[in-house]
């Protein structure tokens, strides 16, 4: 009988095992996307609500929670990408010669461009982290603290999205993310083995609904800023 | 004369073999013979079993199941098939089902009844003891297949479902939708894969047996060609099992797969094995007719269609080319209803087949003209659709109608179907004794390749039963009777007989490639096949057979001087070369078949000689119904065993007389 460690290596070396990792890390990231969106939408509840929420995140478990979350998310992103690279390389190797005529019968457009959309999302994530988390050269460090003495996330957000170029890039990236999710979420149900013939349609709708909500929710913020709805 | 290079070599080998047709039927009452025989059979110590090597050629129901079962017993097995995988053997195409005397339906079935029906269905030309054994092991087959995971049809209670098939009075047929053969084959294939994985079976796919190696009168190996690389290889063993299927493709057009061929059996015949009853061929009345000269094969459709369809052709030849809808009711000839009012459209297979041929020969056939004749009759569902509604008909035959439409482009809901008979099974084969061993010791023959169980005609759903019976249960029990007399590994591929056989094979291939004539292999196959179909098909006459026998040697001569096989070499993938070898044997075999048909001056089962049928007067005298096959039990109640003499035109006849202890000889009547 093999040891669990041996078996785990076997699992991670197998096609289904690797896909399972991609799906599972995807699930974690989907959870983050949902949570992050919910939090960000507090911008519509006003300056105090959003800043209090941000402060809560930073202080929860004496500031430990956010680091745990960051580690899990970073780990997930790295694993998601690493195993995708392994799988993609194997996929390329499995079809050395391509067809002269290539026809798609069933695959969705989102599913066909997962690598491209994924790479764009990665670029965006790096920019987004530098922009709002590390706050490189955007002048956010100079913002005064809010009335509660918290860092003023609300004003940072408005200041950030007031730049049309930033907002445009943001909207395009969110579109990519939603496109990625339209295949990714339904695919996740398939790979994790959750879907059944009876629930398949439901899961496909959930995936579609989630992508639409993601797009609508996230893009509403820069649009609200640019239109002056949130100021 | 242009002929095969190895003709004389094969002949000299056959000279040394003493010719016996000892059926080795065990003593005792019919119902106890098999049990007694198993008890009396030799056993081989488990430790010694693995020293014996057995070659199995063919991986269909018979070959696949035999290879797996022999391997489970501990023998080393080498299994060969020409397909790219053992899963593709033509057993896969069987649609209907498999019989077994389980009596799950409580309708009075029993081993004895299945035995009786099979002997009677075979028109009293099979060996009783073999048939009884077949009926006995039929029940074990179902258990075995279910345990392998074969998804047979089930009832709502979760137990196995049965249906009545081919006019049987009892429901004893197990089925898996319309794909029973496929599912049974996949069961045998999975067992075979398990044994390959365990290392006891070495599988050789895309490998074709080109000759049998006979050492001191005993079968000790085969010569093969790896179809992928063209390499010629020698394989020695302590015994050889042929499970290479039937020879229906001698007719060029049949329901067999394109690759089905008689080569392995015929090569064994040339090496001394007796070929039995080649004239027993079975015609299926409801196949899709030819649509043109390019037609490569025929597709069978379930006979159940005749339950609701009415068969007709126009009364007048001139109407043959009209659209069916333009032919008024009064100008239609419902010939089966007219000629056989008691059977109507459900007249027995052979009778309705011959009736179709008759009206087409009169020029009243329908559909496209192929080679100057219209070979097709209408099977019309218009009335049934009117009576029961399209929904009911769709429920009954939807998938068949769909298949028909896919092939012909016509919807049977709108236009009457066109059907015509086609060859789909061959009852003849290499002669075997009760142990399934041919007259060549060590050469065992299983499944459709042997002659043993179906007599002159096979009952529906019995082919699958026989293949699996031979492979799972009979051969594994009887093979030790031969093996125990042999010292394992006594012959190796260094033996002079292998040298000689390989040389003959190589010379033959080189000869085929060297001709570089003007005609393709297929053109010869088509020519000899259509000649057989016309003259040795569903109705045979002395004149027709003599005509064929005059023409076949000429076809052979032209083949060996004017065939063109692409010269891409012996040593590479060359499907035309494969076909050339097979067609060369089909030509010789066609001659043997016609000789057998000519010599058998009677009609029985699938062999119908126009000269021997019941007349109006016979019917009045109560002897038999008009048009029915008239057997001649006095002179022909024997198995013909043809010995190759070196001259394919003059084989030597041997006879095994058939004795009937249990079943009384009677005239067939399905009234």
């Amino acid at each position, binding site marked *: 009988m093999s040891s669990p460690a041996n078996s785990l290596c076997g699992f991670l070396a197998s096609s289904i095992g690797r896909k399972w990792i991609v799906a599972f890390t995807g699930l974690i990231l989907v959870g983050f996307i949902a949570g992050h969106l919910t939090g960000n939408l507090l911008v519509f509840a006003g300056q105090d609500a959003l800043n209090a929420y941000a402060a809560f995140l930073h202080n929860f478990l004496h500031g430990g929670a956010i680091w745990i979350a960051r580690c899990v998310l970073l780990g997930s992103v790295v694993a998601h990408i690493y195993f995708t690279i392994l799988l993609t390389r194997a996929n390329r190797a499995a079809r050395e010669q391509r*067809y002269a005529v290539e026809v798609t019968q069933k695959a969705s457009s989102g599913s066909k461009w997962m690598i491209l959309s994924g790479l764009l999302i990665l670029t965006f994530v790096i920019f987004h982290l530098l922009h709002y988390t590390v706050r490189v050269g955007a002048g956010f460090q100079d913002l005064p603290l809010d009335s509660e003495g918290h860092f003023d996330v609300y004003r940072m957000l408005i200041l950030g999205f007031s730049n049309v170029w930033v907002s445009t890039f943001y909207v395009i990236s969110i579109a990519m993310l939603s496109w990625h999710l339209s295949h990714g979420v339904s695919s996740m149900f398939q790979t994790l083995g959750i879907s059944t013939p009876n629930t398949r349609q439901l899961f496909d709708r959930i995936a579609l609904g989630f992508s639409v909500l993601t797009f609508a929710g996230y893009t509403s913020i820069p649009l609200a800023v640019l239109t002056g709805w949130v100021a | 004369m242009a002929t095969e290079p190895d003709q004389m070599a094969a002949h000299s080998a056959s000279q040394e073999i003493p010719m016996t047709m000892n059926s080795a039927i065990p003593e005792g009452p019919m119902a106890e013979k098999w049990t007694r025989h198993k008890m009396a059979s030799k056993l081989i110590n488990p430790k010694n079993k693995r020293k014996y090597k057995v070659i199995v050629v063919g991986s269909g129901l018979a070959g696949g199941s035999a290879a797996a079962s022999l391997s489970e017993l501990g023998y080393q097995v080498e299994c060969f098939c020409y397909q*790219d*995988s053992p899963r593709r053997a033509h057993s896969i*195409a069987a649609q209907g089902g498999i019989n077994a005397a389980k009596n799950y339906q409580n309708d009075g079935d029993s081993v004895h009844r299945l035995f009786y029906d099979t002997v009677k269905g075979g028109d009293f030309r099979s060996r009783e003891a073999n048939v009884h054994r077949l009926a006995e092991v039929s029940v074990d087959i*179902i258990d075995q297949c279910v345990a392998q995971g074969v998804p047979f049809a089930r009832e709502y209670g979760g137990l*196995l479902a049965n249906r009545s098939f081919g006019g049987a009075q009892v429901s004893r047929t197990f089925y898996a939708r319309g794909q029973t053969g496929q599912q049974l084959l996949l069961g045998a294939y999975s067992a075979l894969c398990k044994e390959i994985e365990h290392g006891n079976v070495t599988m050789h796919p895309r490998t074709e047996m080109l000759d049998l190696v006979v050492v001191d009168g005993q079968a000790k190996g085969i010569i093969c060609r790896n179809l992928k690389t063209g390499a010629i290889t020698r394989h020695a063993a302590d015994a050889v099992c042929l499970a290479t299927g039937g020879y229906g493709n001698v007719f060029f057009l049949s329901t067999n797969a394109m690759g089905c061929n008689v080569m392995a059996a015929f090569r064994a015949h040339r090496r001394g094995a007796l070929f039995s009853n080649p004239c027993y061929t079975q015609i299926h009345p409801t196949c899709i007719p030819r649509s043109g000269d*390019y037609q490569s094969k025929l597709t069978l459709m379930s006979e159940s269609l005749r339950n609701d369809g009415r068969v007709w052709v126009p009364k007048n030849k001139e109407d043959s080319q009209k659209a069916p809808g333009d032919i008024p009711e009064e100008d239609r000839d419902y010939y089966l209803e007219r000629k056989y009012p008691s059977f109507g459209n459900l007249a027995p297979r052979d009778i309705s087949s011959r009736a179709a041929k008759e009206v087409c020969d009169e020029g009243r056939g329908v559909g496209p003209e192929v080679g100057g004749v219209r070979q097709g009759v209408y099977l019309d569902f218009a009335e049934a659709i009117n009576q029961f509604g399209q929904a009911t008909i769709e429920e009954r035959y939807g998938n068949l109608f769909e298949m028909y439409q896919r092939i012909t482009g016509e919807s049977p809901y709108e236009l009457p179907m066109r059907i015509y008979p086609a060859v789909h099974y061959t009852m003849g084969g290499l002669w075997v004794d009760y142990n399934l061993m041919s007259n060549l010791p060590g050469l065992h023959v299983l499944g459709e390749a042997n002659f043993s169980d179906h007599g002159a005609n096979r009952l529906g759903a019995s082919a699958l039963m026989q293949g699996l019976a031979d492979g799972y249960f009979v051969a594994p029990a009887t093979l030790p009777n031969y093996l125990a007399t042999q010292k394992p590994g006594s012959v190796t591929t260094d033996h002079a007989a292998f040298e000689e056989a390989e040389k003959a094979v190589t010379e033959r291939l080189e000869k085929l490639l060297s001709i570089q004539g003007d005609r393709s292999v297929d053109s010869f196959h088509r020519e000899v096949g259509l000649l057989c179909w016309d003259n040795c098909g569903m109705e045979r006459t002395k004149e027709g057979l003599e005509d064929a026998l005059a023409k076949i040697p000429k076809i052979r001569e032209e083949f060996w001087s004017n065939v063109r096989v692409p010269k891409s070499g012996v040593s590479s993938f060359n499907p035309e070369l494969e076909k050339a070898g097979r067609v060369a044997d089909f030509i010789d075999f066609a001659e043997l078949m016609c000789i057998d048909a000519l010599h058998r001056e009677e009609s029985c089962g699938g062999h119908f000689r126009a000269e021997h049928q019941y007349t109006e007067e016979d019917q009045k005298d109560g002897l038999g119904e008009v048009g029915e096959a008239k057997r001649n039990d006095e002179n022909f109640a024997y198995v013909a065993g043809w010995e190759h003499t070196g001259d394919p035109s003059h084989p030597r006849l041997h006879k095994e007389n058939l004795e009937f202890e249990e079943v009384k000889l009677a005239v067939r009547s399905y009234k």
Partner: protein
Amino acid sequence: MVSIKGQPNLLHLTLKIWRQDGPDDKGHFVDIDAPGIPTSASFLEMLDIINERLIGEGKDPVAFDHDCREGICGMCSLVINGVAHGPEKATTTCQLHMRSFKDGDTIHIEPFRAKAFPVIKDLAVDRSAFDSIIRGGGYISVRTGAAPEANNTPIPKPVADAAFDAAACIGCGACVAACKNASAMLFVAAKAGQLNSLPQGQAERTARSLGMVQAMDKAGFGNCTNQYECEAACPKEIDRSWITRLNRSYTAAFARKSLL
């Protein structure tokens, strides 16, 4: 369609056929002008006609795989205008007829392309990788003669029917050919699923799921990216849900084997 007069309608086609001498040859397309192709011929009969003409011209005929020509043996293949088994749904190449094409059409004919299915010659490919997957566990280990009475284990009809849906697979490899990753998941899932869903198959369920997937990976097939091109190409319309089940049973098998 055959006209009532019995004269078949004829097509004039341009064929672009892949020719390749052997597994190591690079391969290329050859244009063949194909006049006089009857619409009532099957696709493979069309190739027969072409080969007959090539032989007549002293040229090497096109090698392609075929056997039963009635859609059940799974030996025929071909990617026709980019679609495995051609344009008709739930139809193998041997059952595809020329009436599905129009006069003047150009038809690209390519072999099933996958590293695990090396080309033997022209359009013929070696699919023995599928056999290796079955050897990995696609069986129930029951010795001949050791089987219990068949009706001892009732199997609910829906379970038996579902198992049959999976068992309908003919092992042609169209799923691999159609998948952009040349993944064999639909085949493996159908074969494993049939046995995993039946009571007889429970004893070896864990070993089967692990073994078959391992054999699949070893053979060099790609990975499923859940695009279901396989389902669209499958001539027997095997459902993608078998892949879901395989994902589930493989993960469960891994968990059972390593954790319990």
